[in-house]
């Protein structure tokens, strides 16, 4: 299964980006063959509105089934839900540590938006 992590870097030791829609990018990790791909989200960063929705579209295109991030606004939450993507939150500082927590089943799922829209 593919899992997307919000990050400001392109490697597993890169820091997590706590933002979802306005994250610098994503690392999409495939748990079946332990490979990953870095996806640039900066295009979306430039929009004034709708960043969470566009980021969701990007994740759907990558085929990810869940996303690990810091926080998630109401629009992004609705979009992710509609796309059938599970949302996990973490305060882990790096992607590698977040991945470890994900594998250990130690992450909390987010059942409602936890920040206001436009949180960036």
């Amino acid at each position, binding site marked *: 299964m593919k899992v997307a992590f919000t990050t400001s870097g392109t490697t597993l030791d890169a820091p997590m980006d706590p933002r979802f829609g306005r994250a610098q990018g994503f690392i999409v990790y495939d748990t079946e063959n332990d490979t990953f791909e870095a996806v640039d989200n900066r295009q979306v960063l*430039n929009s*004034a509105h709708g960043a969470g929705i566009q980021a969701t579209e990007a994740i759907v295109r990558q085929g990810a089934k869940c996303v690990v991030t810091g926080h998630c606004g109401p629009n992004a939450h609705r979009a992710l839900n509609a796309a059938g993507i599970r949302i996990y939150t973490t305060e882990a500082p790096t992607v590698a540590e977040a991945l470890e927590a994900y594998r250990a089943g130690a992450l909390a799922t987010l059942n409602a938006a936890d920040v206001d829209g436009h*949180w*960036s």
Partner: protein
Amino acid sequence: MPESKIQELVIISGKGGTGKTSIAASFAVLAGFPVIADCDVDAADMHLILAPSVRERHEFRCGNEAVIRPDDCTGCGRCRDLCRFDAIAEVKGGGSYVVDPVACEGCGVCVRFCPERAIDFPESLCGEWMVSETRSGPMVHARLGIAAENSGKLVSTVRREARRLAEENGHRLVLVDGPPGIGCPVIASMTGASQALVVTEPTVSGEHDLERVLKLARHFDIPAAVCVNKWDLNPEMTERIEALAVRSGARIAGRIRYDRAVTLAQIQEKAVVEIDAPSAGDIRLVWESLGL
């Protein structure tokens, strides 16, 4: 550095012309090398005081705009009928149509439904944003193209870049000079900020606009402080405004006296606190009250 450690103060006013930028420029001097973000992209004035030397320039693109190829247009008028923004008109003499780029919202409806596929949809260049050095710290600022739309998106870009600079270089404060009003650019400049300072003036307009801008701050859950500039022009109104601020859940950050030296400082391209101005002390007290 974790993002939460960086403070972001946004200075807004609701009403324009209350002295917001003069105060923001003074704060830039007092803050000890913050990152400065001029988000009043419609009428950016901070650079007139801080004399930036531009280090980077970036094009700012915002959406697309419809352009009808006159040779392929058969003049059926479908595009004009479908356009909700009144942006398409018949060319004088008839026979073909033309898009008014100023009114076009870039929705792409005409492009999609033109039976002749005679409408192009190029990306539009709306302005530029810059990263500069100033004597008070790095500054991110922008210039919106003439009659360009979407300043909210440009505001978001300026803020994001300012925050990135702060993260990369270990600044602990981002100082945002916001636009007037309560609409799109203001929302884009204040959401997620750690604190908002509203600079108002003791007039009926100042009072009215303060009420609306404080509602906006509450709507987005941002702690707000209020300072009355030129307070001595109408002390009674100042008291009324401060009472209103407190009722609306804002803190009082202080009063700044009416001072002609503010314009004098502007003419010398200096911040008010950089010259011997009577109101400089007031501005210092307001700054200190913010606890930044």
